[in-house]
């Protein structure tokens, strides 16, 4: 099958930018995907007083008054919290905030909206977390660079894959530290951690939890079937889980 022309689009939404790399033929479908992302922003943003998340968080609205997706999000956050020993939480610092889950979830769903209507070659990058499907051009996998958190503008590693996700958590995010839910203090053990695996919803949450865990994350990610991690410590040293080499590209 010949490679068709590609379309790249950058959409400011959710306080960040979502980058799309899709077949040009997907152009008519893209507006619906973007509208959905803006709907997620309106519904889940903790920066909007009138979002479902904010109203629910203040106790002004029950689950029945909110979008049904909110209940689904809360349920999945509970599973992830259990799986991560509480290092992933939708209540960081005691306040209801499922953003760590919603971001990955919306990236994965945006990509699925495109592949579901027959565009198998898709990459969606939401604020540095990426879901890839298919191949960018026939015969080669997607190549995703991992930003070096200590040397902005450079790459610490490159991974490659076809239907896979790459999610990174680190101190570069939004200028705010990820809080270790168990200590209440900013997580400082790692400069960044990247998780690779099939789905970005999971990879994003795992990366967030791993970053909060610090060096202990290495052992934890080894227990996660199908997901691998690569991390950069504040002194520049790196570690990776035993299966990460399968993703590493030169």
């Amino acid at each position: 099958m010949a490679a068709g022309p590609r379309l790249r689009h950058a959409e400011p939404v959710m306080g960040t930018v979502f980058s799309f790399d899709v077949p040009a033929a997907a152009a008519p479908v893209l507006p619906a995907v973007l509208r959905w992302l803006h709907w997620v922003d309106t519904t889940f943003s903790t920066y909007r007083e009138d979002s479902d998340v904010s109203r629910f968080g203040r106790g002004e609205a029950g689950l029945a008054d909110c979008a049904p997706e909110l209940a689904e999000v809360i349920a999945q956050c509970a599973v992830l919290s259990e799986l991560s020993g509480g290092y992933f939480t939708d209540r960081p610092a005691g306040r209801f905030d499922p953003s760590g889950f919603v971001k990955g979830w919306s990236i994965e769903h945006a990509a699925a909206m495109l592949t579901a209507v027959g565009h198998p070659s898709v990459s969606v990058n939401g604020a540095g977390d990426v879901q890839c499907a298919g191949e960018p051009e026939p015969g080669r996998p997607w190549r995703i660079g991992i930003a070096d958190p200590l040397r902005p503008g450079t790459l610490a590693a490159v991974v490659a894959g076809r239907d896979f996700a790459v999610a990174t958590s680190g101190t570069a995010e939004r200028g705010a530290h990820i809080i270790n839910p168990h200590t209440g203090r900013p997580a400082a053990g790692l400069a960044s951690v990247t998780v690779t695996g099939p789905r970005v919803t999971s990879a994003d949450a795992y990366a967030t939890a791993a970053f909060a865990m610090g060096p202990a994350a290495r052992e934890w990610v080894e227990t996660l079937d199908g997901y691998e991690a690569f991390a950069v410590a504040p002194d520049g040293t790196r570690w990776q889980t035993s299966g990460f080499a399968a993703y590493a590209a030169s």
Partner: protein
Amino acid sequence: MRRAVLAFGSTVAGLILLLSFRSHTATPASAGVSAAGTSSKSSAGAAGNGSSGGSGGGSMAGSAAPSASPSAAGGATGGTTAGGKVVTGEVVNGPYGPSQVAITLSGGKITKVTVLQHTDDGENSQQIDGNALPKLTAETLTAQSAKIDAVSGASYTSAGYIKSLQSALDKA
């Protein structure tokens, strides 16, 4: 076609690197690498901003040096050494004077960056000799050979996105 551009100013602050992503095949002549201020649409959205945002060569903010003359890639001259083909870039006139680099290509990859001339502007020149050049060479090798489709990490606000590697990919 994505093109790699290296533009060097004569001070550390003027060292700016534009990166090649998915640059085309590995023939040195067509690698699209020119070591001068070739105008290129791969500039990462900060065009016209004279500040480089660089410290020690670590920044890839990607705006061309303000006084660099846009020139066609064909202006580079070259020769062959045992280590590969040497491509000499055009002279770039930076704020403190002229600069010029040469790049050694081997198998389509940059293996060495050589500064042929830079203007001595006092204390900064030592930084260029000692620290920034080896660092810059390493960065060049990392990014130029990477040929990536997207970047993970360095999650950013809309403003931070402009300066990011992902932004350069989206614009190129």
